[in-house]
Structure formats: structure tokens, C-alpha cells
């Protein structure tokens, strides 16, 4: 069953940004990554799904129901964590979480305390006094305390330290195992890679590609930079899968795509001083997709 079905969704704000004709589906039990640079339309898509803004064209369904028409009904089973967390100030964390829980017709207090323990959050503090990271935790707890079937996260990790990020990812994995579907938006490819099954890449309001993480990894380039003791024959690394080869006094740089073993053998055969292998950043993946389109 598809939990989210987006078909030809369009939202325009006058002439400026927005999204154009977006279609994709998220299947039940999936962790779906939604990546793109800032301003690409990630938040616009998510806010449309949540009924915060209205589409100018197309439609979106959640749990098989139109997300505008049945908004309040489907939101019973949605947990949402916005990128910027601002909650009613002058309120204690516990009061805010209780207020949040009061919208769901079930007892959430047990889960609420569990989550607070896991994330190490002091419920008796005032929200005004919390640091950005701790506010984020409040956001995570209010999004998860009712054990939603669909979790929507809009750039959730900013402000969390690596340790907390790991705890948070563990939480999400756990929720996913219990059956929750997750839509995870981010501009950082690496965090999506760790967690997600499939990703959609969005740029300038359009879906550029939609692929399994495994396929995406295979089809992406790695950046190699190799320093050797002696100058190499210019053609030494010129094998299948190597692109943009450059050599300069004992330093070779190139992009490689394909079976890494073949290039590693080549490297092992020579005497090297140093080596750098980088994952391409998001921008480079975009470049890759643009090249494919042209």
C-alpha cells in the first residue's frame, strides 16, 4: 500500500519558487529520503502534504485519502517535525508536550517519558531556556509521542550533536521496525544514505531523479586524489570508468565510477605517498544527473 501518493503536485507563489508537477509515492514501511539544496521545494512539498499550504495543481494522498479534504483525519496518524522549532514560549516542556498529546485521543504519557529519557531531556525546564538542540528534542518528542504511522521530518538534524543524531536515527529505525513509514527531507546526502531505502532528488522545484540508495551509490562518482613519489605515465590511470583525469608533478586526480576493485588494483601496483578518496557531495551528484539529462 502506498502511504503517500503525490501526483502532478504544483505550487506556485507568483513567479518565484515553488514546485512544479511533482509525482512520487512512498510505500508503507519505507524510509524515504527527500533531498535537495535549500529552496529546491522540499518544504513546499511537505507543507502541502500537511495542508499548511494549498496546491495550485495536482493532488496528494496520504493513507489513500486526499490530504486537503481529509486533513484533520489523516493528521491523527502523522508525526511532524519542522526544520525550525519554535514552540509557545513561556511554557514548560512538560506542559507543551501534554498540550501536544491532548490532540490525540490516546494516552501518550508513557511514550512521552520514554522518549524524554532516551533523548535526555529535562521536562521541567521552560522552553525559553532551552538551547537549539534541546528545543529540537522537544520537537522530536512532540512528533513521536503519539506513535504515528507516518513520520514526516523536515531537515530534522540541525542543532543536534552527533551523539544525539545517532540516538535520533536509532529511534527512527526502531519506529520504522514497528511499522512506521518515514519521509525524511534533508540537504545532507550522507545522513539520508545511512537511513533511507529510496530517495527522491529535487532541484528547482522538480524531481530530478528517484532511485534506490544502492543504485544511486553505484551510479555516482568517487573522487580520487593520489600523490606518488615519482611522476607517472600520463596514461597510467586511463582505464574504464575514469573521468576528468589530471596529472601534475606526481599528483593525479580523477573521478571514478564503476567497480572500485579495478581501480584499487591499479593503485596497489604503484608506490604511492598519499591518497584521498571522497564521496561526491550533493552538488556533484546533481551535476551528474544534469549531465545525464543533456
Amino acid at each position, binding site marked *: 500500500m502506498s502511504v503517500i501518493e503525490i501526483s502532478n503536485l504544483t505550487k506556485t507563489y507568483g513567479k518565484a519558487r515553488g514546485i512544479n508537477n511533482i509525482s512520487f509515492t512512498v510505500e508503507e514501511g519505507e524510509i524515504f529520503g527527500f533531498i535537495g539544496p535549500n529552496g529546491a521545494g522540499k*518544504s513546499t512539498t511537505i*507543507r502541502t502534504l*500537511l*495542508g*499548511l*499550504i*494549498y496546491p495550485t495543481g495536482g493532488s496528494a494522498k496520504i493513507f489513500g485519502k486526499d490530504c486537503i479534504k481529509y*486533513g*484533520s*483525519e489523516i*493528521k*491523527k496518524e*502523522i508525526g*511532524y517535525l*519542522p526544520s*525550525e522549532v*519554535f*514552540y*509557545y*514560549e513561556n511554557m514548560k516542556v512538560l506542559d507543551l508536550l501534554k*498540550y*501536544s498529546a*491532548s*490532540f*490525540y485521543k490516546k494516552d501518550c504519557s508513557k511514550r512521552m517519558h520514554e522518549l524524554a529519557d532516551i533523548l535526555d531531556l529535562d521536562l521541567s525546564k521552560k522552553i525559553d531556556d532551552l538551547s537549539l538542540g534541546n528545543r529540537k528534542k522537544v520537537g522530536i518528542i*512532540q512528533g513521536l509521542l503519539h506513535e504515528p504511522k507516518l513520520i514526516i521530518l523536515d531537515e530534522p538534524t540541525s542543532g543536534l550533536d552527533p551523539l544525539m543524531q545517532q540516538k535520533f536515527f536509532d529511534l527512527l529505525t526502531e519506529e520504522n521496525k514497528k511499522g512506521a513509514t518515514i519521509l525524511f527531507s534533508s540537504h545532507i546526502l550522507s545522513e539520508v544514505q545511512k537511513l533511507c531505502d529510496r530517495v527522491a532528488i529535487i532541484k528547482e522545484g522538480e524531481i530530478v531523479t528517484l532511485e534506490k540508495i544502492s543504485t544511486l551509490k553505484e551510479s555516482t562518482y568517487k573522487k580520487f586524489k593520489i600523490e606518488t613519489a615519482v611522476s607517472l605515465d600520463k596514461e597510467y590511470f586511463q582505464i574504464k570508468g575514469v573521468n576528468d583525469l589530471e596529472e601534475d608533478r606526481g599528483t593525479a586526480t580523477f573521478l571514478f565510477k564503476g567497480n572500485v576493485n579495478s581501480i584499487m588494483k591499479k593503485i596497489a601496483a604503484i608506490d604511492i605517498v598519499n591518497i584521498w578518496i571522497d564521496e561526491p557531495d550533493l552538488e556533484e551528484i546533481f551535476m551528474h544527473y544534469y549531465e545525464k539529462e543533456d
Partner: protein
Amino acid sequence: MNIFIYEWKSYRKSTLIWSLSLAGLTILLFSMFPAIAKDAEEFKRVLQGFPEPVRKAIGLEIDSIATILGFYSYVFLYVSLCGSIQAMNLGSSLLTKEIREKTADFLLTKPVTRKQVLTSKLLAAVVSLILTNIIFVTAANMMASIVKTESYSISAFILISVSLFLLQLIFLAIGVLVSVIVPRIKSVLSVSLGTVFGFFMVGIFGSAAGDEAMRYITPFKYFDPAYITNNSAYEPAFFTLGAGIILASISVVYYVYSKRDISI
């Protein structure tokens, strides 16, 4: 229901402050009444020295100033000004508060419709106004019975008092309307003070000029204490007009708010 309770809690303090201020103002002004009533003739003579437009503008009626209802009408002009500011403030911050504090995302991603959110918030604001009115009317009634020199029409007194609530409802509705039409209000206080004082000044100039048509423009003139004193009733045309403004504003608010994009 939970939104209503939360909203009401957030109004408790300001409701109390407004109620006590209105009651305090009323008590203070009423405490001057015995002195005026004692030297009524002399006081009237002093007032006669004022040009008529000025007297009309500030709501002084020489013939009735020394009676409880006449004096109350005069006091009431200023009470209604304060009350209107309270209501307009409530109204214009009702929805903009959520946008300013960026809590709209929190509230509207919960399983509630926008209509439910709006209704709960409006009810909480109305409850706040009702409480203010109860405290104010109690204080006014108490003072009037203490300082009275002769008996007066209780029903007219109550009708004048209740017109504060009606006036506040009108300004609450106008406030919410302004906030959905001008979504990014930077300073609620300046907008509400500006609007209320604007209408108040129109009322003053209208009275000074004796222009009947001006009465339709400003809600401050919809409930004329002199008419209420004489007839123990509201003027049907203005009562209907007030109700119409409230209904129309609230309908527009519901419509616009349901269709509105909540931007970050």
C-alpha cells in the same frame, strides 16, 4: 476543547489586568459624582462656558450630567474607548500571534481543522471579554448605588453597560478581520490603537459637527446612551448594523483563514 483551554489560560493575566483597570477607572470617575451632584447648578454654569461643539465632542450633556445615568453616559465614553482597545488587541493578535511565534505549524499539523482552531480561539477571546464585562458591570453598579442621589432606571443602566460588550464584539471582529487581511502585522498594539483611536476621533468630530451620517461610520456611536436612557432600548437600525458588521467580518475571517497558506 483543548485549544480553547490553552488559549483561555494564555488570556487570564491580561483579562484580569484589563478588568481591574476598567473597574478602577469607573470607580474613580464615579467617586467624583457626589461632588458634581452637590453643586450641580454651579457645575452646569462652568460647563456652559465651554463652546457647545467641545461639550458634545467629549460627551457632556449639561441637562443630564448631574443625574446618575447622564454622568454614567459621560464616564462610559472613556470606558468604551479602553474596552475597545482591549477587544481590538485580542482580535488582531488572535491569529497573528501564531504566525509571529511560528507556532502555526505546531497547531495546524495536529488533527484539527482550521475552523476548529478559529472557533476555539474566538470563544476564548469572547470568554475573556465576558469576564471583563462582568467585573466592570459589577463595579459600575456598585458605585452607582453608592453615589446615587435619586433613583434611576436600572434597565437603562444595564443596557448602557451591556453596550460595552456589544462594542467589544464589534472591535474583536474588526481586529480578526484586519489580521487575516494584513497577515504580517509587525506590531499589534499600534494597529489596534490606531484603528480604535481613528474610530473614536471620527465619533468625536461627528458629535461636534452634529452630523447624523457620521454615526454610521463609527461603532462608538452605535449605542447612544441618551437614546438608551430615554427609551430603555437600543436603536434597532444601529443594533442591526453592529450585528451585521460582526457577522460579515467573522464570515470573511472563516473563509479567508480556511483558504490561506501558512507560510514560514
